[in-house]
């Protein structure tokens, strides 16, 4: 078992109270930060660790923190993104369910680093049980003086407010989240200005993912260099990979950055279920370009996956076997994005619905072959033309599925059925 940074003490049990958490060394990092370190030193340590945002974009966390103005007349906010809306992703949930105080400690350290005394924890509406866990944990932390006024006698104050979302994918986009948090419709904001300058209620705001903040605790405990060494250059630490699909042991695995995809599937997830043949893998949540069975030797870090034309994204690894119809799989994804587009930008609002309708006809065999190229062209016109990346998220799978599995799409158009055996008449 490789060295862990997140789930170290919760392999065989959960740490659901402050007492349990403290028995495993919990809150020592916060004590060190509040009593021995200046905010800038915390940021430096995180920069050294090579920690990159675990929400999906992989932006260097230390650098993000350093964009928050030091001297601001306005309050500064820390916002925790626990919307976890990318299909195939279930990592924040594991942290919350198994070790909620790791998150709360990470929040306290990070809020201190950016100079914020108010934190909003935005959790997806569907995570009701998880929200209740957090609610209790927050109360527990207040009771023990790890939240609230004058934490550990340091003079530092921090309040954490839990806010449940209402179930929109787009509220996982950080500015859509901020709008939602302000009580508005979850429409991503036009940037600039970026949240670091003008975020929640127009104040400097740092938005970080749950996994990112949880990782900060071990960085402080063991040092940035230790954390960086766990992964590959520029991709520090470990990552929670959420493996689902046709594997023997689906689940969330904490593994070092840069581990080969093949190893995740065969060494940890137990290999292919029923020993069917591997056809394809989604490496980072439903929105990223798909990989074929030939591409699974890629190292799972941000840069290596990007180098072969896909994205590490949210760490949602979806394993697909030979019995799966790629046309149907793509149609399912296209429906999702048409349903979740916020409707603000023209290319996304119109494009997602158009793609869904045409792919429905392709699936039913009611389309002309030329329309496959048309679908590619629609997807192309959506990319890079909108306020937020949802249009890209909808377009990228479309392009990669059709490019990599074109014969399946052509088969549907020509034969009105699948070439996946056993053939199913549609």
């Amino acid at each position, binding site marked *: 078992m490789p060295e862990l940074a997140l789930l170290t003490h919760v392999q065989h049990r959960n740490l659901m109270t402050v007492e349990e958490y403290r028995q495993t060394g919990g809150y020592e990092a916060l004590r060190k930060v509040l009593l021995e370190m200046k905010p800038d030193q915390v940021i430096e340590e995180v920069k050294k660790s090579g920690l990159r945002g675990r929400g999906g974009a992989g932006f260097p966390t230390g650098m993000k923190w350093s964009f928050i103005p030091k001297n601001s007349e306005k309050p500064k906010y820390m916002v925790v993104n626990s919307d976890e809306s990318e299909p195939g992703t279930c990592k924040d949930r594991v942290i919350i369910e198994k070790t909620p105080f790791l998150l709360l400690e990470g929040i306290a350290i990070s809020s201190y680093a950016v100079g914020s005394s108010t934190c909003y924890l935005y959790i997806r509406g569907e995570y009701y049980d998880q929200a209740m866990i957090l609610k209790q944990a927050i109360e527990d932390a207040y009771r023990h003086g790890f939240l609230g006024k004058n934490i550990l006698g340091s003079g530092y104050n921090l309040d954490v407010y839990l806010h449940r979302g209402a179930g*929109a994918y*787009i509220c996982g986009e950080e500015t859509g989240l901020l709008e939602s948090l302000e009580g508005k*419709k979850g429409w991503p904001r*036009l940037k*600039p200005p970026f949240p670091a300058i003008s975020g929640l209620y127009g104040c400097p705001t740092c938005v970080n993912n749950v996994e990112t903040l949880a990782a900060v605790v071990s960085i402080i405990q063991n040092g940035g260099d230790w954390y960086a060494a766990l992964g590959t250059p520029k991709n520090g630490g470990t990552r929670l990979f959420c493996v689902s699909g046709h594997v023997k042991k689906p689940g969330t695995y904490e593994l070092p950055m840069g581990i080969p995809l093949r190893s995740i599937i065969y060494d940890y997830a137990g290999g292919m279920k029923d020993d069917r043949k591997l056809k394809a893998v989604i490496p980072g949540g439903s929105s990223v370009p798909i990989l074929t069975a030939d591409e699974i030797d890629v190292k799972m870090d941000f840069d290596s996956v990007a180098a072969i034309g896909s994205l590490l994204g949210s760490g949602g690894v979806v394993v697909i076997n030979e019995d799966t119809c790629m046309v149907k799989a793509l149609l399912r994804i296209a429906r999702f994005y*048409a*349903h*979740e*587009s*916020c*409707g*603000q*930008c*023209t*290319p996304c*609002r*119109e*494009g*997602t*619905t*158009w793609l869904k*309708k*045409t792919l429905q*006809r392709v699936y039913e065999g009611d*389309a002309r072959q030329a*329309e496959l190229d*048309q679908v590619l062209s629609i997807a192309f*016109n959506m990319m*890079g*033309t*909108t*306020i937020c990346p949802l249009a890209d998220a909808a377009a990228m799978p479309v392009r990669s599925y059709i490019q990599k599995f074109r014969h399946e799409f052509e088969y549907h158009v020509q034969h009105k059925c699948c070439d996946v055996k056993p053939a199913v008449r549609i």
Partner: protein
Amino acid sequence: MPTVTINQKSLTVPEGTTIIQAAEQLNIEIPRYCYHPGLSIAGSCRMCLVEIEKMPKLQPACNTRVTDGMVVTTQSPKVKEAVSGVLEFLLINHPLDCPVCDQAGECYLQEYYMKFGLHDSRMNENKIKRHKAEVIGPHVILDTERCVLCSRCVRFVREVSRSHEIGIFNRGGQSEIRLLPDQVLDNNYSGNVVDICPVGALTDRDFRFQCRVWYLSKADSVCNGCSRGCNITVEANRQRAHHGEGRRVMRLKPRFNKEVNRWWICDIGRYGYKFIDDPSRLIQPLEKQGDELEPLDWSTAAERAVGRIREAKQRGGAGSIVIVASPQLTNEDLFVTRKFFGVDLGIDQIDFRIPDKNTLSDDDFLLRADRNPNTRGAEAILLDGGGFDLQRIIESASTQSFGLLYLCEQDLVKKLGSEPARRFLGQFDYVIYQGSNENETSGLANLVLPAATYAEVNGTFTNFEGRVQRIHAGIEPLGDSLPAWRVICKLAQTAGFDYGYESAAEVFVELAQTVTEFEGLSYEKIGSEGMKLPETQPVPA
């Protein structure tokens, strides 16, 4: 100040200028739907994408500020492809019902398709069905199938009218403009959403199906609805007399003036033009014969008027004559009125102020309580002598009797109430009414002289701030009616004073030479944006 280069043309602009603003100054057209200079930036239509050197992604010109040395192009294949792609997206679910759409001819889907699209349709899906022809307020009708969801109307009711009646509901392809629960788009600025709607989604119930826009001629004018003096365009149909029930003026549109009304006008002003082509228009001189008003030709009417004025003056002196002018008249009209009656006939009982029993109020935006466009001008031109106080005569209800009343464009019955108006008129042996429309007061006059409306004349109004602004005739005076200054000139000529004015412009030249407050002004200086009267010394008490 940063210097930007757009399509090889360079320009230095103030800090904070956006690319779309800089491009406008360079006369480079960047297409847009959501951007409107009077509203906040939405950046959502994605039509204004441009390519900026050293930036990998296209950027919206509306939200990107110019930096020094920035090099922008709107002509690269990448930009063209993106813009025509966005346009295609906007059109796939559009009903393409231009032949029955009121917006046709001034629709930015049509406009931009011809300039930036020209693609063949490749939409093979059923179009999304949505709410059509929904009445959402007293003046506005909504067709959500034509809507491009630019959100201009939503931002307008949020930011300008602050009345919050509409919003965008649902999400993705199901997004639609809807009224908020229990709301009606009923505020005094509702008509503006039709102006700013770039497509046929919001149309004007008043203008709908009355006339195709390409038959309209346009004349720059100023609203006569209140003393704000909002700049407008009078749009008239001069080619299809059978359209719109024979109305000539089909609609008024706001005209941008940074200092006065910016892009907006109120609904009271916008829909207040109906009197111009109303059947109540006076189109020939009339004289009371018994209980009836009988038509006369102009020379007979002028002789009759001048004869009665002379008679009254001979019998009771200038003091037996009262002239009531109107703040609805132009500066030019008022100047000629003053010149003839005041200077040449020596009548000093000239006023224009009629107390109004109907109390009107300001709103907190454009509309002003004084519903006259030229009160300030009338004060400057008619009251610089001081002295005469009409209100005192009206309110004292004295039994003093006078020889003759010359009343311009004032419905006394409406303003004073029937009894006080009749009592006041009864104090005069002879009443001459000069005005554009028949009303209860004109019906009580002995002689009626038909005047043109503001849409039919050239001239100037002076708004409450002392801004002198030009109006231009959009249509000919109806029937035998004449601009008020010409009516007075006709009387003057009959009385032996030939002023020789060929145009309102010539009147203004003399006005500027004569009336102190207007000193130094000319039509050229006033231009299209108007010019404020120089600060004048208060008249000593």
